[in-house]
């Protein structure tokens, strides 16, 4: 693919724990183009955060990482601590989920923003202050001059998250990694924060890796989506394509499990949704994904979703499907799925 900014190739991350070796990421390959918003979605433990945090290498010391993470062709995994320090903040920046714990409570907002500018841009105090005001305006904080003198506890959750974003984009990074950036926020505040991301991309051309479990947020803002399950990408497609034609049974299961799925026209209906009269004996039901996520300790040569999959057949437990391009690709971009039986409706299988 031409013009890619970031490429992750066969990334594997494991952690040594008391219970054994946890295989968090088991061979993930992804690319990110300049100005693209890529959503990494999946449930807890799917490896989405670990995958993304391997770019700035913000992983715990117990992590063992292999594969390649290339930014403009340069492999980041071999960088020294001081090279990484230059990379973080100026090329790759992170917005964390919890705006309260990721800001330092004992420094003013202004100090925390200008620290970045001193460090990476070598701006003077006066210039850094002026730039900080611009940044707070960029993320939609009213009265930025006054806010610079305030401490994090004086701000609301939405405002803190905006400050976090302002810090993250202070040096105009080319890649912004946002780890569940709106999960701790109310929906009316979330809408505004997503608008900030959109305008950053449009105005600064920032590429964004958005880690989220919220498919509504994905539908709202992402260009491309990678769905992760048990440490691997199981499906990847352009956002419209993915919601219109989810091929992997896990993706279909996730969309069917959404409480709102029954009420949105078109896309979310593939598996028949949860229609049924509310009155009388038939209650509305959500589609469940039976069973549990496999333990992360071993990696059998079988489809990891097979034990929970309504369409699993013998071949699914005999070998592990690879993430391959799918035929009848209507989206124009590559639609990849790791499944031997992609697109088979799960209704018949589940509702007999």
């Amino acid at each position, binding site marked *: 693919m031409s013009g890619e900014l970031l490429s992750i190739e066969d990334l594997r991350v494991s952690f040594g724990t008391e219970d054994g070796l946890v295989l968090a990421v088991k061979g993930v390959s992804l690319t990110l183009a300049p100005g693209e918003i890529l959503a990494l979605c999946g*449930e*807890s433990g799917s490896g989405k955060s670990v995958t993304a945090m391997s770019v700035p290498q913000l992983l715990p010391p117990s992590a063992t990482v292999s594969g390649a993470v290339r930014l403009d062709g340069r492999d980041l995994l071999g960088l020294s601590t001081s090279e990484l320090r230059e990379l973080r903040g100026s090329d790759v920046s992170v917005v964390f989920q919890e705006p309260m714990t990721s800001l330092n409570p004992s420094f003013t907002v202004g100090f925390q923003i200008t620290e970045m500018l001193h460090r990476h841009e070598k701006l003077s105090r006066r210039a850094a202050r002026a730039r900080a005001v611009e940044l707070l305006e960029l993320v939609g904080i*009213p009265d930025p001059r006054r806010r610079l003198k305030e401490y994090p506890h004086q701000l*609301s*959750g*939405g*405002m803190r998250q905006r400050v976090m974003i302002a810090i993250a984009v202070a040096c105009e990074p080319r890649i912004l990694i946002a780890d569940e950036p709106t999960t701790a926020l*109310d*929906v*009316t*505040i*979330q*809408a*505004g924060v*997503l608008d900030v991301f959109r305008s950053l991309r449009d105005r600064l051309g920032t590429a964004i890796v958005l880690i989220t*479990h*919220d*498919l*509504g*947020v*994905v*539908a*709202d803002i*992402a260009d491309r989506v990678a769905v992760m399950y048990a440490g691997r990408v199981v499906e990847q497609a352009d*956002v*419209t394509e993915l*919601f*219109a034609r989810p091929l992997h049974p896990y993706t279909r*299961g*996730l*969309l069917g*499990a*959404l*409480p*709102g*799925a*029954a*009420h*949105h*026209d*078109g*896309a*979310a209906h593939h598996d028949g949704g*949860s229609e049924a009269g509310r009155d009388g*004996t038939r*209650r*509305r*039901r*959500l*589609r*469940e*994904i039976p069973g*549990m996520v496999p333990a992360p300790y071993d990696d059998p040569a079988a489809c990891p979703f097979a034990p929970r999959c309504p369409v699993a057949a013998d071949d699914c437990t005999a070998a592990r499907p690879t993430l391959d391009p799918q035929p009848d690709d209507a989206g124009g971009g590559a639609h990849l799925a790791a499944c031997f039986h992609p697109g088979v409706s799960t209704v018949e299988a589940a509702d007999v």
Partner: protein
Amino acid sequence: MSDLLTVTDLVKHYPAGRGRAVRAVDGVSLTIGAGEVLGLVGESGSGKSTVGKCILRLTEPTSGRIVFDGTDVTHLSRRAMRSLRRDVHIVFQDPYSSLNPRFSVGQIVAEPLRQHRIASGRTAVDKVCEMLERVGLRAEMRHRYPHELSGGQRQRVGLARALVCGPKLVVADEPVSALDVSVQASVLNLLTDLQADLGFSCLFITHDLSVVEFLADRIAVMYLGGVVESGPREQIFTDPQHPYTRALLSAAPVPDPAAQRQRRRVVLSGDVPSPLAPPSGCRFHTRCPVAVDRCATEVPDLTPVRAPDHPVACHLVTEDSVPTLAQ
């Protein structure tokens, strides 16, 4: 439907020093019919959880009246509350902190039976096993401890504990918010099934509109300590009237890119004001895109305007029209 619970003009102020008070709940009235699920929706700080706690008397209301099953329980003594607590149970949001880690699952679920002297010994064990199976856990699970369970399993234990006495009302405070979507689906299905089978009433407190759309019969929307609109589920979703309800509905993204990107969003300016000093008049007027002068001075009553069972607290909603919310 006869009302099982009637809350009238409930107020809960928390003292905040220097004579000030956090006005967490400021005049909330609501009713829940027998076998009805009322979804209480609002964002953080709206006071929705405080309403739930007041109903259970886990916190003492400042004023107002709570009538449960014909008895005024607002000022019942602790002793008299014991019999009420047999009939009203709660399911908490966080399945990690709401189960005692030193108790086995069996002890946790048997605790209400023991407290209310409903069953003990062998009968209690039988009841516990039966209840565990009802919530989709194997009876052997009673020997396990909370740390051995997944989030979804813990929340099932929380449900079993709430239901084992056969309550008339269950207050469920964000019971699925901490769960992954696939686990959330199975807990929501379970809750609807149990509610249909056992017929308890439910106050379901949540910030998630799609969840109440799935399971509530009626919905009440709270903003900054007050109910701004309530009505049957279909009406709230097809004919939302209060500007806040409409902003809330439009802000929740739908999982469909084409539809989501075409939606017109009602953008609310600013943040939720502090409950220490809520705005005068209509509490929503500082963020309302269509507020007029009257909204800043005159408190709107929660009163039916367009449909008898669908009261709304907004000066601008009339019989023929709801205010147009421009982008």
